[in-house]
C-alpha cells in the first residue's frame, strides 16, 4: 500500500491549490503575528516623540526599553519576575487542582453541590480585595497570603468551567464506560475529565491571566517586591519609565504564559475537533 504515504508523490506532481511550502507559510504567519505588536510599539514611540504628551504621561518606548535592559542587567528584573511568577503560578496550580476537584465533586455529589453552589454564586462576584485585611491578619504579609488571594480568585472560573464541561459529556459515553465496569472514581478521572477537558482547559486559560493579575495587584497593595511591588514604588515616585517598564514586562511574561497554555491545549486536545483547521468551506 505505497499509496498511503502520499507526501512523496505530492511534491513530484506539483498539485494545483497545493499549499505553499510549510516553511514559507510558517514564516508568513509569523510575520503576520508580529505585525500588530510592531504597529502598537511603533505607534507608541511616535506618539511619545510627537511631544503631545510629557515624558511623565507617556515616556518614549526607547527609554522604557533602556530601563528594562538596565533592570535585566542588574538582576532586579529576574528577581522581581521570579517572585511574581512564583506567587502567580503556585496560586494558579492550587486553583487548578482545587477547582477541578471541587467542580467534579459538585457534579457527583448532591451534598457538595448543595453546599458550594450558592457559595460560589456569592463568592465569585464578591470584591475579595475588601477582605485583604482579614487575609493579612490570618496569613501574614508574605507569600502565603498573596498565594491564597491568587488561588481564591482564580479558583472560580475553573470550578464553573469544570461543571459546564462535565454537564456536557455525552451520556452514552458515560454509559459505555460504566458498562465496562468503570468505578465512580475511574469514571471521574478517566471519562469525565478527558471528555470535559476542552472546557476545563478554557477555564484554566481564563484563570491563568487572572492569577497573574491578582499576584501583581496584591503585590501593589501589600508590597513585597515582585513586578507589582516594583511598579507600585515606581508609580509612587512618579517614575514613569519604571511604571511602563513594569507594564511591558508583565505583558511579555503574560504573553509567554498564555502562549504556553495554548500550546499545552493544542498538545492535549489532538483528538478534538479544534485540532483541525476550522473548515472554511
Amino acid at each position, binding site marked *: 500500500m505505497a499509496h498511503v504515504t502520499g507526501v512523496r508523490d505530492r511534491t513530484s506532481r506539483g498539485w494545483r491549490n497545493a499549499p505553499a511550502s510549510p516553511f514559507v507559510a510558517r514564516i508568513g504567519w509569523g510575520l503576520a503575528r508580529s505585525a500588530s505588536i510592531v504597529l502598537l510599539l511603533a505607534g507608541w514611540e511616535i506618539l511619545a516623540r510627537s511631544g503631545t504628551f510629557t*515624558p*511623565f504621561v507617556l515616556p518614549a518606548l526607547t527609554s522604557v526599553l533602556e530601563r528594562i535592559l538596565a533592570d535585566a542587567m542588574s538582576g532586579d528584573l529576574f528577581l522581581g519576575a521570579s517572585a511574581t511568577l512564583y506567587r502567580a503560578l503556585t496560586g494558579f496550580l492550587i486553583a487548578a487542582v482545587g477547582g477541578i476537584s471541587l467542580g467534579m465533586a459538585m457534579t457527583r455529589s448532591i451534598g457538595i453541590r448543595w453546599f458550594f453552589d450558592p457559595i460560589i454564586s456569592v463568592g465569585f462576584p464578591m470584591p475579595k480585595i475588601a477582605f485583604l485585611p482579614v487575609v493579612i491578619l490570618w496569613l501574614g504579609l508574605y507569600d502565603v497570603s498573596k498565594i491564597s488571594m491568587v488561588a481564591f480568585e482564580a479558583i472560580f472560573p475553573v470550578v464553573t468551567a469544570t461543571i459546564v464541561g462535565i454537564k456536557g459529556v455525552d451520556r452514552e459515553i458515560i454509559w459505555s464506560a460504566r458498562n465496562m465496569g468503570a468505578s465512580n472514581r475511574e469514571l471521574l478521572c478517566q471519562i469525565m475529565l478527558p471528555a470535559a477537558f476542552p472546557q476545563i482547559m478554557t477555564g484554566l486559560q481564563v484563570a491563568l491571566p487572572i492569577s497573574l493579575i491578582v499576584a501583581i495587584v496584591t503585590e501593589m497593595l*501589600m508590597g513585597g517586591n515582585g513586578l507589582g511591588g516594583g511598579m507600585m514604588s515606581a508609580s509612587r515616585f512618579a517614575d514613569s519609565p519604571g511604571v511602563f517598564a513594569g507594564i511591558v514586562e508583565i505583558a511579555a511574561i503574560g504573553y509567554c504564559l498564555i502562549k504556553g497554555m495554548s500550546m499545552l491545549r493544542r498538545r492535549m486536545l489532538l483528538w478534538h475537533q479544534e485540532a483541525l483547521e476550522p473548515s472554511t468551506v
Partner: protein
Amino acid sequence: NSAEPVKIRVGWVAPVTNWGTILLEKKDLARHLGKSYVLESMRFAGTPPMVTALANHELEIANLAYSTLAIAIKNAGMDDIRVIADEFRDGVPGWYSQEYMVLADGQIKKIEDLKGKVVATNAAGSAVDIASRAMLRKHGLIANRDYTLIEAPFPTMRAMLAEKKVDLIPAVLPFALNPDLRKIARTLFVQRDAIGVTDMIVWTARKPFIDKNRAAMVDFMEDTLRIVHWYLDPKNHDEVKVIAGRVVKQPPERFNWLFTKNDTFRDHDMRPDLDALQKNVDITHELGFVKSQLDVKQHADLSVLEDAIKRLK
C-alpha cells in the same frame, strides 16, 4: 465675568481630614459657588493617581503631602506646580503630633531595639513613612538593611501590632485614639521628635490654570476660607461632629477630637509654613526619594490666598 463658571476639581485621599471632603457639606457658605466657579471633589486612592491626574489636566487642585509635592515637581517634571494653601501641620507645639507605637509590654524599649524587627508603614515614600525612616536613621538603622519595612493599611495597624505581625506601627488620627490601641500600645516616638514641625499636606495647582482663572480662584478661596473658619470655630464643634459622622457613616462621638487641640494643627487662614515645608522636602531628598533639591519658595504662589484673606477682613 464670563458666562461659564470655571470648573474646579479638588482631589482628596482621606475623608474628613482633607478639606476637600467636607467643603461641599457647607454649601450655604459658598457664595460664589455655581456663579464664578463650580466645585467637584474627587476621591483618589493615593497620591500617584493624583499626580497622574494633575499631569493630564484632569484635576485642578491636588492636596499633596510634602513628599509627593517634591516627587510631582522633580520626578514627574511638572515645574509649574504651585503651593497655594495649607491643609494641616504636624508637631506644632500644643497640637497633636503623629505617634509611632510599639506593644506596651513588648521587647522594644528604645529605637535601637528595632534592629532586625518588622516596621509597618502605609506606603513607602509617604509623609508618615519618611518621618519614621528619618527617626530610625538618626539611630543608625537603615530600612531593609537593619529592619524590614512592610506596608499595611492604617485601619489594620492596631490588629497587626496586637497579633505581633509587626513591631512598630504609625498611629495616625483617628486610629491613634482608639482605646483598644491605647490599652496595648505605648508611644515610642512622635513625628516631632523625628523631623520637627512638618507641613504635612498642602494644596497645589498648576500655574497656567491659576493665571487663567485668577478671579474664579480668588472667589473659590474666599468661599473655602469662610467654610474653614466655620469648621474651626469651637462653637460649631457639635455640628461639625455630626457632619463628619455623616460623611463617613460613623457615630459623631468618634469625632470628638476633630479640629480641637487633640487634632493636628490647622492654620486659620490656610497659610503654609514654607520654612518647615522646605526642611521636609530636604529630608525627602536626603532619603533618596527625589532626584534633586527643590526650592519651595519658587514653587509657592500665595497671592490668591492673600487676596481671599484680604476680602474676608
